[in-house]
């Protein structure tokens, strides 16, 4: 699971959970694998994401690389910055661990990089 995916995931489908966002990450195995860097893509994605959520998630995994706490202005041409963000968004992957619903504490296992978001019949 990439952190860009984590940025949109929620547990709000659980009955009784209203926001279910952001999900906490507890990782036992994190891998960084190279993905082709496309500055234009990263620049276009940034306005769409929740910066704080990304920052906290990356920090909890130890991959924030001292990036700023707030999304800076004029990042479009800052290749260094975009490269770092590219790494956070697409290259850092949780291979093993779990996602935790902030409201109910329900755990969703992550195995072999795949988050299992399936709910039981009595949870929906």
């Amino acid at each position, binding site marked *: 699971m990439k952190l*860009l995916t984590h940025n*949109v*995931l*929620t547990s*709000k489908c659980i009955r009784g959970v209203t926001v279910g966002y952001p999900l906490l990450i507890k990782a036992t195995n994190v891998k960084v694998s190279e993905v082709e860097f496309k500055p*234009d893509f990263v620049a*276009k994605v940034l306005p769409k994401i929740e910066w704080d959520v990304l920052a906290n998630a990356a920090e909890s995994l130890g991959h924030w690389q001292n990036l700023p706490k707030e999304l800076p202005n004029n990042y479009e041409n800052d290749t260094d910055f975009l490269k770092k963000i590219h790494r956070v968004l697409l290259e850092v992957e949780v291979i093993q661990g779990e996602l935790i619903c902030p409201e109910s504490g329900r755990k969703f296992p992550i195995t072999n990089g*795949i988050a299992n978001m*399936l*709910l039981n019949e009595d949870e929906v």
Partner: protein
Amino acid sequence: MSQNVEPFKGLKKLNRKLAKLHHILKRDINISTVSTPTNNLVLCNSGLVNGLTEDQVFEHFSKHGEISNITMLPGKSCCFVSFSKKDSATSAYECFNGKLNISQNNRPVYLSFVEEVPKPSIEVIWNELPPGLLVFKNFISTEEELNLLKLIDFNHEQCGLLKHRLVKHFGFEFRYDINNVDKNQPLDQSVPTETDFLWLKLAQIQPEFKGFKPDQLTVNHYAPGQGIPHHIDTHSAFEDPIICLSLGSSIVMEFKKDGTHTCVLLPQRSLLVMSGESRYDWTHGIVPRKFDIIKTKLGGYTCLKRTTRVSFTFRKVLSTGKCECFYRSKCDSFLNCNIEEKMAVQLEKMHVHKVYDNIANHFSNTRHKPWPNVMDFVQSFDSGDFLVDVGCGNGKYLSNNTHTFEIGCDRSANLIEICRNRKFEAFLTDCLSIPIRDNCIDGVISIAVIHHLANESRRLQAIQEIVRILKKGGKALIYVWAHEQVKNKQKSSYIMQDRKNRKGTKEMNGQCLTSAQQVSLDSGNITLPVHSNRSNFQADDLLVPWKLKGDEEENESVFLRFYHVFKEHELEELCLKVENVRILKSYYDQGNWCVLFQKM
């Protein structure tokens, strides 16, 4: 007839043969033959299983006197003829025993006298009309008959050729593939006004049918020897009543319900009205033969030679498309209605989720080529856009774009595993609750997924979920399998993959009617038809086999996947039930109904 009678060969041989046959009769149906003449003869070696028909028996034996009864026993190689007079029976016996070659392969038939004739398990009733059935004799004059016949020229006009008869439609085409009309496609020729006088006449005789005005007419042309298989006119297709005018020839129509089997004579120029129970609960059909045996009022039989019959069947299309009759066991509206929620959950678990996990590898190996229209949609997005593939399978649409972020999700762990091995971003979820935030996705595709949901509220919920995760202005493309596998005379590639289907369009319609069978699920009391692969669909909700070959040839296992196949406009209507949906495009693509919509 003379060529059928061989010269008498030898008494000894005949007696030996008869003794053997008598023994079989005794053992098989517990009938003892007698040596002294009676009114009843048994044809010891010939019956329904040998292809002998009632009219063949009648044709020969009636030459010896009045027949009072013919008893054909289902599944037996013997039958019985009873005469009004003993002399007639004796005469027939002497003339035909061992000499009349109407048994199988033109072998001679062997006869004996019997005291009593067994009663067939299903007795044919004569001239007792099923409830709701009316026959008006001489409803029209010979002149009116001629005028009506002149309306249709089967020699020159365009008409359909069914396996057993010629047919022409007015108002709406009756489609034999779906046993229904397409309400949205009226024909240029509506029901001829020359038939209007019938309804005034009917209202006078039978005031309850005042106001009946059909908007659909099917004209059938039956040559002698042609018939129509037993059927009930689709409940949801037409209103009550269904009315049939017989022109050119009289005919016997059979009606069946449960164990009851009744024969009704439809005289030339008569009007048949099927309403109530007779319309909804009884099947009707015409046996293909050249003459009808008719039971007379006195109890005897007489024969009626068929000539060319033209029938006008008048029907009124049921505009709501939903039948509300009480005859539920025969009612498609009732039978096809929603599978209840609990059952739907079990059905999907057993016949969708488990199946895909079992067939994942084989399924994935058969899914390489992306469909061009889906590809065009996927590639229409801007750089940095988020795309979600709901029910991504092996991820065949996840790798075609380098400038968007694509996430796949599926219900099958084994399919998601395949995506992961192909380095695609994917997670495991059910499409009924997608774990993605509201209003954050630019594009969604859901290709061949929603048809696996077992009732309408679940299918609606899946679309609601897609709409929920979409941004305002975001677009989604949904594909579902179509009930209609032959569209505009073009067969879908699914149908075409069966070599048998590559010839004519019409042939297929006939052949697949028989191939559906029923299986019961052990998850509950639901019975669904099993689809015969590469044929037209016979039901909306059905099980489709997936054959999985093992390591060795004989190790083939069959998995049944649940499908709800969509009728034309059904997907559009479902999408429009969700708020903020604007349909941009709705089309048919290779056996699928497809909707492209935008969130407002």
